[in-house]
C-alpha cells in the first residue's frame, strides 16, 4: 500500500504557514502600543493573532496532518484533489479574514465564512480518512478530540464574527473565551498530545514504553476543557478552578508518558529542533501549573490572564510547532527530492539538511522574545514590548529564511 501523500499538498500548507508567521509577527509589531497597554481587542491585534493562529498554526497543523495521518494511521488521504481545493479555499479565507479584521472588522464575517468553508472541508476530509482506519488507537482519540474541538471553535468564532457584523445574539465575553479555549487548548493541545505519542518515540528511537497515562491524559484534559468552558457561561469561579486543575492534571499525565518514552530512548543525543519541541512540553506544563495556581488563588486580573494565554500560545503551541516543523520540512523535501534515489546513490541524511547551530540560536531568541514580551506586557513597559516584539519579528524572518533554505538543498 502506498501510504505517502503527494508532497505538494502538505508543502503548500506549510509554505503558506511560514509566510503567515512573518506577516503575523510584523502586524503585531505595528500594534506594539496596544500590546503594551493590554489592549488585545483591537484591529491590529485581531489581525496579527489570526494570521498567527489560523494562517500559521492551523495551516501548519493541516499540512502536517496531510502528511502524518496516512503514515501514522496507515490510511491514505481520502481525496488529495479535494485537499488541493481545500488549501485554496482555506488560504483565501484566512488571508481575507485576517486582513478584514485589521482594516474593516464589520466585513470580517465574509472572509471568516470562506475560512470556515475551508476548515469544514478539511474536517470532512479527515472524517472520511479516519473512517477508513480499521483499528482505532489512543492517538486516534486525541486526533478525533482535536478535530471536534476545532469544529466547535469555528462555530464559536463564526458567532463572534456575526456579533461584529450584525445584531449580537449571545454574550460576547463567554463566547470569546469559549472560542479561545476550544481553539487553543482543545484543538492544538490535543493534536500536539496525539502526534507527540507518535513523534517523540520515533525521533528518539524509544522502545518498550507503556503509554499507560495516555487514556487518563485524554479523559482528564477533555473533562477539564468542558468544565472550564462551562465556568464561563455559569460564571462560577470554583468550576473554573476545577477545570484548570484537571487541565494541569491531564498535561501532567501526558508529561509522565513523554518522560518514560525519553527515558527508554536508544538515541542518546536528540536533534536540537526536536529537543526544542520537548522543551516546549516543559513550558506547557509550567503554564498549566501557573494557570491552576492563579485560579486557586482567585487572581482575576484580565492583564495577568491575557499574558497567561499569550504564554500558553507562544511558549507551548507555537514553540512546539516551530520545533517539529524544523524536522518535518527536511523530511518532506528529502522525500520529494531523494526518496527515489535512496539505494541508487549517496543521499544526505535528514540531519545534514538542516543547520542545527542556527536552529539553537533561533529557538533561544524566540524564548528570550516571549519572556521579554510577557514581562514588558505585565508591567506595561512600552519600550520593552517594542524591543522584544521587534526581536520576535526579526526572529520570525530569520526562522522563515532558515527553513525555506532547505528547499535549495
Amino acid at each position: 500500500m502506498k501510504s505517502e501523500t503527494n508532497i505538494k499538498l502538505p508543502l503548500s500548507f506549510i509554505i503558506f504557514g511560514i509566510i503567515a508567521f512573518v506577516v503575523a509577527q510584523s502586524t503585531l509589531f505595528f500594534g506594539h502600543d496596544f500590546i503594551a497597554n493590554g489592549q488585545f481587542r483591537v484591529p491590529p491585534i485581531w489581525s496579527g493573532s489570526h494570521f498567527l493562529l489560523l494562517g500559521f498554526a492551523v495551516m501548519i497543523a493541516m499540512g502536517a496532518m496531510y502528511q502524518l495521518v496516512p503514515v501514522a494511521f496507515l490510511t491514505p488521504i481520502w481525496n488529495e484533489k479535494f485537499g488541493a481545493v481545500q488549501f485554496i479555499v482555506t488560504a483565501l479565507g484566512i488571508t481575507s479574514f485576517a486582513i478584514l479584521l485589521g482594516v474593516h472588522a464589520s466585513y470580517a464575517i465574509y472572509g471568516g465564512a470562506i475560512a470556515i468553508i475551508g476548515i469544514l472541508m478539511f474536517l470532512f476530509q479527515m472524517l472520511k480518512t479516519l473512517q477508513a482506519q480499521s483499528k482505532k488507537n489512543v492517538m486516534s482519540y486525541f486526533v478525533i478530540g482535536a478535530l471536534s474541538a476545532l469544529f466547535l471553535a469555528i462555530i464559536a468564532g463564526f458567532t463572534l464574527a456575526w456579533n461584529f457584523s450584525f445584531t449580537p445574539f449571545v454574550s460576547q465575553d463567554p463566547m470569546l473565551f469559549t472560542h479561545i479555549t476550544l481553539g487553543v487548548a482543545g484543538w492544538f493541545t490535543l493534536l500536539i498530545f496525539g502526534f507527540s505519542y507518535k513523534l517523540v518515540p520515533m525521533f528518539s528511537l524509544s522502545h518498550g514504553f507503556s503509554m499507560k497515562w495516555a487514556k487518563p491524559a485524554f479523559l482528564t484534559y477533555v473533562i477539564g476543557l468542558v468544565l472550564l468552558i462551562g465556568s464561563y457561561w455559569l460564571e462560577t469561579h470554583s468550576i473554573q478552578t476545577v477545570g484548570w486543575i484537571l487541565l494541569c492534571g491531564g498535561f501532567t499525565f501526558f508529561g509522565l508518558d513523554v518522560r518514560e518514552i525519553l527515558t527508554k530512548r536508544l538515541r542518546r543525543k536528540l536533534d536540537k529542533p526536536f529537543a526544542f519541541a520537548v522543551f516546549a512540553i516543559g513550558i506547557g506544563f509550567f503554564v498549566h501549573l501557573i494557570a491552576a495556581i492563579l485560579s486557586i488563588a482567585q487572581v482575576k486580573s484580565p492583564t495577568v490572564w491575557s499574558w497567561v494565554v499569550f504564554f500558553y500560545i507562544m511558549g507551548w503551541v507555537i514553540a512546539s510547532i516551530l520545533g517539529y516543523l524544523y524536522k518535518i520540512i527536511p523530511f518532506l523535501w528529502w522525500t520529494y527530492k531523494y526518496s527515489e534515489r535512496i539505494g541508487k546513490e549517496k543521499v544526505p541524511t535528514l540531519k545534514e539538511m538542516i543547520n542545527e547551530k542556527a536552529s539553537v540560536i533561533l529557538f533561544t531568541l524566540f524564548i528570550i522574545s516571549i519572556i521579554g514580551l510577557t514581562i514588558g506586557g505585565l508591567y506595561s513597559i512600552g519600550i520593552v514590548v517594542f524591543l522584544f516584539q521587534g526581536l520576535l519579528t526579526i526572529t520570525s524572518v530569520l526562522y522563515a529564511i532558515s527553513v525555506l533554505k532547505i528547499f535549495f538543498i
Partner: protein
Amino acid sequence: MSLLGSVKAALFEVIDPELGINIVDLGLIYDVQVEGNHAKITMTLTTPGCPLHDSITNGVKFRVNQLKGIDDVTVDLVWEPAWSPDKMSERAKEKLHFG
C-alpha cells in the same frame, strides 16, 4: 561472491535517512532469499507508521534491482516479530549512543 551474498551486501548501502545508519545494522532485515533472478527480502521498520515507510522499501527494491543477475525484487514488509533494539548490531548501538 554468490548472488545471495551480493544482495545482502547491497542492503548495507540502504541508509535510514533519519538515523543515518544502514538498514542491516539497524536489524530491519529479517530474511533474504534468491531464487533464480528473483530476490525476496523480508524486512520491518523500527515503528509501524514510520513516515519513511515507502522511501526505505523502495530504496531496497532499487538497490537490489541494480545487481547483475537480479531482474525482480519483492519486499515483504512485516510487523511480526516486531523490531526491537536487540536486533541492532553493536556498531549501530554505538552510533546511536554517541551520534
